[in-house]
């Protein structure tokens, strides 16, 4: 009898499914993601509501079903193949069992988070003459209510109905023909969408924007290159600020108590020739703290003044509350492309400590304000000069993680080097404007790469796990005591977050270029990561 009932139910379900397929594609209903829920996202670890998981960007999940004792029981539950072949750098969001995945070049799909089957897809149409420096990527969406917000490669911001995939609004953020583009996931601040811009290799003037989430109208814009009216414009010789670069091509963080938005800025333009832009070049290569309502810069901290090596401060700002020299402090943790790790007071911008976490040969250290003491002979020359870190940096845009359980900061680091070359170059609108280049001197296997666990209280490296040859994947820490990350040799793996012990790995067959995330449905924890052009989802064996 029971058997019969099951059969009946299955056939009913099949009919329902068939009907669904005939109707317009739509996801099941989910509870709209309010601003309050975003502020308290760590309280609902079954959902992954922002690019970095929570507003403090720790990329830490409170889910602990998968832990040190059972991580070897992980198995593949499903995979989703992205139809456009490029490299996937996406971190999906999950809301009540529905997963939103962004795809190259600027598309998004909604899938069932338990099966990977598609509900709807949204394809954004791009112009043919795009100018982009570094591949056709999209790293993720933001959600507020029932609307998704996505950056597009032609520098638009689009709002998409999360139930149906229909377009709500489409706003041009900047003119792509001038070299602007957008790849990063935005964040939500109250009723606004806050978002950055890419194009540092084209002599743009960078900014951070806020848009009305309901209408797409711009509320504020804060330029990341100081201009007239800002005394810091004097940190740029002559008119060089006009094409000063300082793009903002990765996602920022937010502190609701302080009402501050934190964002990193990229290199000054041109990248390798500093002669045409003498001065510190504020606010390139800096961390900025912006007022959440007005966008005003409340403080800035410049990691690499007058950068000539393309060492963008394009990292995810991790916000944490830690014991620092016996005192509880609200800090920001930052492992920078320039190979130094920083702990900064996030309320005031005060520099607390900075130590190298990867090989560097350009500074003898940092002074008491955190300013690098630059060694002679490291500026690029016409013949080329060998400097560490490499152009890719001690680390880069890929997400670090912080575990409040271990109180450690985790970062994928690379002890590389490059020969940096300077060239004289005229600025031409919409053309590449780098003022130089670089040469590799040895095969990549000659250099050392590792996940490093850093104590933010003193900057010491507590342990490291070597990666061969290197990694451009993000890291996720879990309450189950695990770290998940990947590598360019196509592995996805789990380490013990306490000591770096290897616990589990699987070869996914293609470079992991994304950051892992975790969610739960019906009490079961899942872990997802994109590798190559595929999103893989793992869970424990039943």
């Amino acid at each position, binding site marked *: 009898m029971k058997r019969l009932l099951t059969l009946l139910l299955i056939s009913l379900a099949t009919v329902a499914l068939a009907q669904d397929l005939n109707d317009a594609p739509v996801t099941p209903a989910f509870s709209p993601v309010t601003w309050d829920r975003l502020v308290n996202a760590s309280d609902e670890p079954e959902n992954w509501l922002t690019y970095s998981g929570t507003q403090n960007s720790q990329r830490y999940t409170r889910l602990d079903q998968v832990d040190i004792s059972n991580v070897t029981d992980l198995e593949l539950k499903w995979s989703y193949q992205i139809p456009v072949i490029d490299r996937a750098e996406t971190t999906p969001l999950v809301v009540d069992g529905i997963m939103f995945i962004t795809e190259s070049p600027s598309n998004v799909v909604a899938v069932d988070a338990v099966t990977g089957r598609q509900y709807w897809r949204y394809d954004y149409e791009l112009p043919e003459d795009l100018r*982009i420096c570094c591949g056709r990527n999209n790293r993720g969406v933001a959600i507020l209510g029932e609307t998704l917000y996505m950056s597009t490669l032609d520098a638009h911001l689009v709002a998409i109905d999360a139930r149906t995939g229909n377009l709500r609004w489409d706003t041009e953020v900047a003119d792509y023909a001038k070299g602007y583009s957008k790849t990063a996931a935005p964040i939500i601040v109250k009723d606004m969408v806050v978002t950055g811009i890419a194009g540092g*290799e084209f002599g743009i003037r960078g900014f951070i924007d806020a848009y009305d989430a309901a209408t797409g109208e711009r509320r504020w814009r804060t330029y990341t290159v100081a201009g007239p009216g800002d005394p810091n414009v004097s940190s740029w010789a002559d008119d060089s600020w006009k094409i000063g670069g300082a793009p903002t091509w990765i996602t920022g963080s937010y502190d609701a108590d302080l009402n501050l938005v934190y964002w990193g800025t990229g290199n000054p333009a041109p990248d390798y020739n500093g002669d045409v832009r003498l001065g510190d070049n504020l606010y390139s290569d800096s961390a900025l703290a912006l007022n959440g309502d007005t966008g005003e810069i409340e403080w800035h901290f410049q990691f690499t003044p007058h950068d000539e090596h393309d060492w963008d401060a394009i990292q995810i700002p991790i916000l944490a509350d830690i014991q620092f020299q016996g005192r509880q402090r609200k800090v920001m943790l930052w492992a920078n492309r320039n190979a130094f790790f920083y702990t900064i007071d996030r309320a005031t911008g005060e520099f607390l400590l900075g130590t190298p976490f990867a090989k560097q040969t350009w500074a003898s250290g940092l002074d008491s304000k955190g300013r690098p003491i630059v060694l002679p002979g490291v500026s690029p020359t016409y013949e080329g000069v060998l400097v560490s870190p490499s152009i890719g940096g001690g680390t880069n845009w890929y997400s670090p993680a912080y575990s409040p359980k271990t109180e450690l900061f985790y970062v994928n680091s690379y002890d590389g080097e490059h020969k940096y070359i300077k060239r004289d170059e005229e600025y031409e609108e919409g053309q*590449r404007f780098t003022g130089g280049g*670089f040469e590799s001197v040895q095969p*990549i296997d000659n250099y050392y790469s590792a996940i490093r666990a850093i104590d933010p209280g003193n900057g010491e490296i507590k342990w490291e796990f070597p990666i*061969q040859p290197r990694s451009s994947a993000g890291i996720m820490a879990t309450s189950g005591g695990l770290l998940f990350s990947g590598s360019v*040799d196509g592995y996805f793996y789990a380490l013990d977050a306490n000591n770096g012990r290897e616990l589990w790995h699987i070869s996914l067959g293609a470079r992991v270029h994304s950051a892992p995330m975790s969610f739960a449905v019906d009490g079961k924890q899942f872990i997802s990561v994109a590798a190559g052009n595929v999103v893989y989802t793992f869970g424990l064996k039943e």
Partner: protein
Amino acid sequence: MRQTYLFYWKANLLTGILLALGLGLLNQPAVAQEHEEINLYNTAVDVRVGGRYFQRQCSRCHGADAKGTDETGAPDLTGTISRASTDFGIYNIIRKGIQGTAMLPVPADTPDPKVWQLVAYINSLRINPANIDLTGSPDAGQSLFTSKGSCSDCHMIGGTGGRRGPDLSLVGQRLDPDELKIAMTNPDELVDPRWWTMRITQKNGSVVEGLRMEEDTFSLRVIDENADLWSFRKNEIQSYERVETSTMPSYTQTLTEGEIDDLVAYLFSLRKDN
């Protein structure tokens, strides 16, 4: 490459049919001419201008020396271009990009001469064998390779020889005469990581030594001197050590300068077209 060809073949056919319809005859030569584009921008000045443009638009991925970078996966452009065998093929890669890869087309408003100058620059990076005079005798080199030099103990050419060194069947495409000479006189100068030696100490204390077939984050594969292949998981061995020098001996003592020149001439002749 095949895809590109297929596409042009189709375009050819279509143009051909249209022409045939229009003119009432099959105008084959005209069609062929139209697609056998030759580079009209090929002077020394064009090469220089193309080089400057390359530094600006392409070096970020392909490197300032055009030798490629691991970071971006952009290949070395100084040797054989694997996706094109003609100037027009290279032109098309630059104009249209390579679908589904980071290799994007140049901006659509880039004038044709600029693209051709890039082609001229890329061609200038490749050595043109016709312009190189070598003193040695390829025939003498060929016999030295298997006799006095015992090179074939370690190297394969055309399917015969040993496996302890790289296959040299097409080495003339990869290395220029100077580099070939250095390979024989100073083998340690630049050793590809594939040819490093790994010394692996197992948990029971025994040591395995062999050439580094592959190493990744979690595993290692080496081939020992008996051509036996060993696979290890890094967490199941005690330790490992890399020796980054070459296992090939230097021939400055055992071969005369003339014999080395002969070997250079022979190896340099080993190209696809020969």
